[in-house]
Each structure stands twice: as C-alpha cells, then as structure tokens.
C-alpha cells in the first residue's frame, strides 16, 4: 500500500514538474516549492481535467497531440499502479532459480512449461489488448497465429533468412491487423459486444481457411536455423529454440509493458481501456488506439505462431487449436491484464507439461479446460484481472 502511494505521488510529481516547466517557459512565473505543489497538483489536476472536458465536449475525435499527455497520465496514474504490481512480479520471477540439480523429467517439465507458456503469453497479449481497448473477446488470435506461422514458414523455405522472414511477417501482420480493424471492427463498434465477438469467430475461420488455401494444410518443416544444441542455464538444460522462444517472449512483453506504462502512446491506450468515452472527451483518438491494439494483437499472435513453428515445425491444424487452448491461460491470468496472460500461460503450461510427462499426454488439453471451469466458478476475473471484468 505504501509502495502504491509512493508510485502515485512520484508519477503525479513527475507529470506536474513537466507541466510546470511548460508553464514557466510560457509565462515565466512558477513556484518551485515542490513539496507543496505535489499536493496541490493532485487536487488541481481534477479541476483542470474537468475544464478540458467542458471545453472539448462533443469533440470526440479531438486531436491528442495538442495537449500535455502528462495531465492524462496523472488522471490515469491510479490505474497504472494496479497492473504495475502484477507486471513487475511476472517479469522479475525467473522460474527455475531454485532448481540446482534435477533429473531429466523435471528439466523437460520446466522447459516445456516455459516454452509453451511463452507461446500462450504471446497469444494472450493480443487478446488482452483487444479486450481492453474494444471490449471484444477475440477468437481471431488463432487465425493470426496460423497466418504468421505459414507466412514465416514459406518465407524461410524460400531462403530469405531468419531476420528478414520474421520482420516481414510481423510487418505484414501489423498492417493486416490495422486494416481488419478499420475495415470491419471499427464499423461494428457500438453494436452489441456479443455480435462483434461472433464476428471475430468468422474472421478467425476466414483467415484460417485463406491461409490453408494459400499455403496448404501440410506439415511445415523449416531448416534448422539454430541447430538444436542445448545450453545449461541455472542448472537447466535448455535447447536453443526454447531459449530463443523465451528471450523473444520476454523481449515482447518488455516492449509491450514498457510501451503501455512508460510512453504517451501507452498512456492513451490505457486511458481508452479504462474509460473509452472519457478518453474521447479528453482528446484521445479512440479509433486510432483501437487500431493500434488490433495491429499489435495481430503481430503478437503471428509471433506466437512463428515461435511455435520454429520450436517444432508443425501443421496448421495444431497451431490453430493451440490458439483455442490458450483461452484457459488467458482467463486464469485475467482478461484485462497483459502480464497476467504470461503468468497464466506459464501456470497452465506447467500443469500441462506435468501431466504430459508424469501421466498421459492426451489429458493435457482437457486439463487446461477443467482449470478454466474451475477459474470460472471460483474467480471469474482471473488472478490479475479487475473485478469489473465480471460484468462485460
């Protein structure tokens, strides 16, 4: 609690100081008593915001560039803290530290849990972003996974090299996500949420079918870019591909979380997530933010697909159903928590790999769904989700 308070204070303080600087540059008069201004800012920011609201009312698509983002930040700072705690926990907890000597089974359980969990986490990012920005439960993530995996596979089999193939796939998916939002879902926005969610089912089916028509349903094998050597890290024997997956996922989560919490853009996105209408009044371009959410969602979905492909080389059907099995992980983490998606993913994947190593591989998917039912019964908002999610 104290930590939280401190965070709010620090944020508001920073925002205030920047605002102050601007003011002093403009008018040439500002008090430098920071201890008192801190308190004053917290109270005045509400007033300033309400001023803005009255002036800008009716201008839902007002430009956001012409206003200090610091002010938005200070209004949003309360929300920041809620998810920040979760994100820190998930990023700092590097599992497997306490393992020193272990047998092969345990090793493979942990590595599997991390690798598959990372894939679930990557699928989950996009899901959470779309859900937060537009309130839609997206079933299209599996479609993005398949298209990412297949496009990447075909490029790499043409001998385009790993970095080129990854970059091109991701750029393509980013554009595709943006176009899909602008073309379809921006038009459906404002209607019933369940209709829009059904539209994502249609979209997923369409994307899946199109990529199968384009690239065929056969199993894709890719050349061994990394070799399959193993590294020994913290007593874990981990293969190169798994390491690649984990590093890529960590980097993605770092970028997304830092982008959400440390940049003006992320601030706008979070403001849309917390209250779309208020954000629009305050001049945030909601459509642009939702477009960005869809674009990032498509990109991370595709990333999940291509990571999964690199890890094993698989057929599109498996990739598609993996996207469906990610739902328990997302629900466990909480529908509106980015970091929760990774934690939930790793937890579900850990359970699955324990089952597949010590019991029977066929039980692993159904176990994830049993967990989903349990979560729905006991804690529908998930581990890190906010209570409000229960009422979609």
């Amino acid at each position, binding site marked *: 609690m104290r930590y939280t308070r401190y965070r709010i204070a620090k944020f508001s303080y920073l925002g205030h100081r920047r605002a102050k600087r601007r003011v002093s540059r403009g008018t040439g008069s500002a008090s430098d008593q920071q201890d008192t201004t801190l308190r004053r800012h917290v109270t005045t920011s509400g007033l300033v915001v309400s001023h803005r609201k009255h002036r800008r009312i009716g201008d839902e698509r007002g430009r956001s560039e012409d206003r200090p983002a610091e002010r938005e930040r200070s209004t949003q700072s309360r929300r920041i803290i809620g998810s920040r705690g979760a994100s820190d926990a998930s990023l700092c907890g590097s599992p497997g530290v306490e393992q020193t000597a272990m047998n092969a089974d345990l090793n493979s359980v942990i590595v599997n849990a991390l690798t598959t969990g990372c894939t679930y986490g990557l699928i989950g990012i996009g899901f959470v972003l779309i859900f937060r920005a537009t309130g839609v439960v997206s079933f299209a993530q599996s479609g993005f996974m398949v298209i990412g995996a297949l496009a990447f596979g075909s490029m790499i089999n043409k001998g385009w090299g790993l970095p080129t193939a990854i970059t091109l796939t991701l750029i393509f998916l980013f554009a595709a996500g943006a176009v899909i939002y602008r073309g379809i879902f921006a*038009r459906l926005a*404002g209607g019933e949420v369940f*209709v829009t969610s059904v539209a994502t089912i*249609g*979209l997923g089916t369409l994307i899946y079918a199109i990529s199968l028509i384009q690239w065929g349903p056969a199993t894709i094998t890719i050349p061994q870019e990394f070799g399959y050597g193993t590294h020994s890290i913290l007593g874990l024997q981990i293969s190169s591909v798994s390491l690649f997956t984990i590093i890529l996922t960590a980097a993605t989560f770092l970028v997304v979380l830092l982008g959400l919490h440390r940049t003006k853009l992320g601030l706008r996105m979070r403001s849309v997530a917390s209250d779309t209408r208020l954000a629009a009044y305050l001049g945030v371009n909601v459509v642009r933010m939702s477009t960005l959410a869809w674009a990032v969602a498509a990109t991370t979905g595709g990333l999940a697909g291509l990571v999964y492909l690199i890890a094993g080389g698989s057929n599109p059907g498996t990739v598609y159903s993996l996207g469906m099995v990610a739902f328990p992980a997302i629900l466990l983490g909480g529908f509106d928590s980015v970091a929760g998606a990774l934690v939930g993913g790793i937890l579900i994947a850990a359970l699955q790999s324990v089952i597949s190593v010590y019991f029977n591989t066929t039980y692993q998917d159904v176990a994830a*769904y049993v967990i989903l039912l349990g979560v729905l019964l006991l804690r*529908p908002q998930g581990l890190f989700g906010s209570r409000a999610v229960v009422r979609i």
Partner: protein
Amino acid sequence: MTNTQMAGITANSGTLTATAKSSGRDRTFLVGSAAFVALAALILFGGSTYVIYTSTLVCIYGIVTVSQEWLFGRAGQISLGAAAMMLIGAYTTSYLSNYSWAVFPIPLVVALVLGGVVGLIVGIPALRLTGLYLMLTTLALQFIVSFLGQDAQGTAYEAGYIVKPPQWGSLVLSNYRPLFVITVVVLGLVLLALNGMYSGVPGRAWAALRQNEFGASVMGINVTRWKLAAYVGSSALTAVGGSLYAYQTGAVGYDSFSLDLSLALLIMVFVGGIGTKIGPLIGAGAIVILPKVLQQLSSVFAANVTVSTWLNTNEAFLSSAIYGAALLILLLFERDGLFGVGRRLYYLVIRIARALLSLRRGTEVS
C-alpha cells in the same frame, strides 16, 4: 453505428407490429405452416432418395440451428458447445439402441432430458455471470465432452459406435422416408413450441433481457433464471438433433462433433439471421448444401484440370472461407442475415412490380 441503430429500430418495430396486428401474424403463421407441410409433402412424395436424405439432414441441422437461435437471438447468449450437445444426444441414442425396451421415441426423450440436465449443470455457474462467460464455459464443455468421447471410444470403437436401426414391427424407421417424416415432425413441433413461446411471456422476457439485463431485472424478470431456461431448452433440443443425426448416419464418433461443427453452426445461425424464425433454417440449408454445391462446381469445371483439382483440394477450406466471409459481410451490411437479404429482395421486387404496373396504367390512360 447506423447499422446497429437501424437493426434495433427494425427489431423494435417488428415486435410492436407483431403485438399490434395479431391477425396479420396469424395469417403469416398459417401461410408459413402450410408452406412447411406442402414442401415436406413435395419432398416426401416427389423427391429421389438423395433429395430425401439431404432434406433429412437439413431438417436435423434445422432443429439444432433453431434451438441455437433461441439462445443467440432471443436470450442474447453465445454458446460454442452445440456439437458437444449433439454428441451427448448421439451417444445416448447409440447406447439405448442396444436395448429392446427402448423403442423409438424413448431414446429421443432420454436425449432431450440428458441434454437439458447437462445444460443445467453447465449453465448454472456460467449464467450467474453477465456477458460472454457462457461462451468460454461452453468452449470448455466442447473440449471436455469431445475428449471424454475420444477416451470412451478408444481404439476399440475407433470408427464410432453403431446405432441399431429403430423399428416399429417390420417398419425400419431409419430408412429414408420414415426418418424424413420423423425429422420433419420433430422440427415442426419444435418450431410450433418456439413460436408459441416467442409470442408469449417468455419471448418478451428474453427480448427484455437481451436488450438490457439490468433493465430487465428492474422490470421484475429473473435474469439468471430466464437465461438458464433458454440455455437448458436449447441444449435439450440440440441433443434431440444429435439423436436424430445418429439415426441417420447409423454410427457415431466423437470426431464428427468437433469444435469446427460448433463454430460452423454458430456462424450459420448468424448468417441465416438471428432474431428471425426462418433465418436459422436458411442457415441449416446452407451448411448442408454449400459443400455439395462446391462438389458440383468442381465437376462443372472438369474440363479445366487446374481449376477442378484446385477446387477438389481446397473444397473444405473454401466452404469455411465462404462461411467466414459471409458472416462478416452480413454482420456489416445486413444484421438479419440471409433472411434480411431475402426480405430486401422481396420488397425490391414488389416495388419494381408496382412501378411497372403504374407505368403501364399511366400509358393506358394517356
């Protein structure tokens, strides 16, 4: 935005006119049921076995889509577990077909009850929550039921469980014509029952809670109970559909009731048009007929080898691509689905005919 508003306005005006002009509704009902019976009779006496077989399949899927539309269009809840419920009905039927005491209608009734019970078990925890949680619960149900089916079949029954043909004396009910009559009768009963409910108190309760759950609860509607009623009822009817499906195919396996089928049924209900009575039947027709049309298409292009082989290899994907694209297009431009498109065409034709008529009259006068 405008689309949804228009959809809302048309839906509202639809219910208003329905309550205001009951005589018009009676006429529509009479014409509809007469057309239904006439079409069934035509197919029964005039159709080839292929036509009868296909129509039976359409009727079976019709039972399923109509009951799913009950849930989607009336109660505003989404379920992804239609295929799971069909699987439950089909397994029940195949299990009961081994016992001589279970003469024909008994398996249907047992499937109905069992589907309802499973719906109750799944629905109670899911429907206490607002929103899309039923979707996730039924997704879980779909996976779990499918898995249990796979586990039960194992390697011993890999091709599926055999359903012994039901008999009344010497009459084998699963032959083409008797089964067609049975499915048509069941479908007719389902439509009658739903029609009665939609125009009565339950229909108004569902309409209220679909538009605004909080508003409905303020009006004294027990939201959870009515949502649960819709889900349990639609599950029970879906299980009956699965039972009839088992009779038609003669063997049931878990793999014919996958998540893909659930998604296809969901898409088809929306493509046909939710909130309409005929829409789901159109959807059921589309789900059966579209693959056959694509097959025909590949034989049409038999001369052109590249096209026909492309069609042959991509048939399944092409049909699901068409489902998906149709869903998106219809949701964007016509919320009432194919039914709405048909209605628009009908009005267009009438307008053109009137214009032509007045034009001719005008020329005669001058």
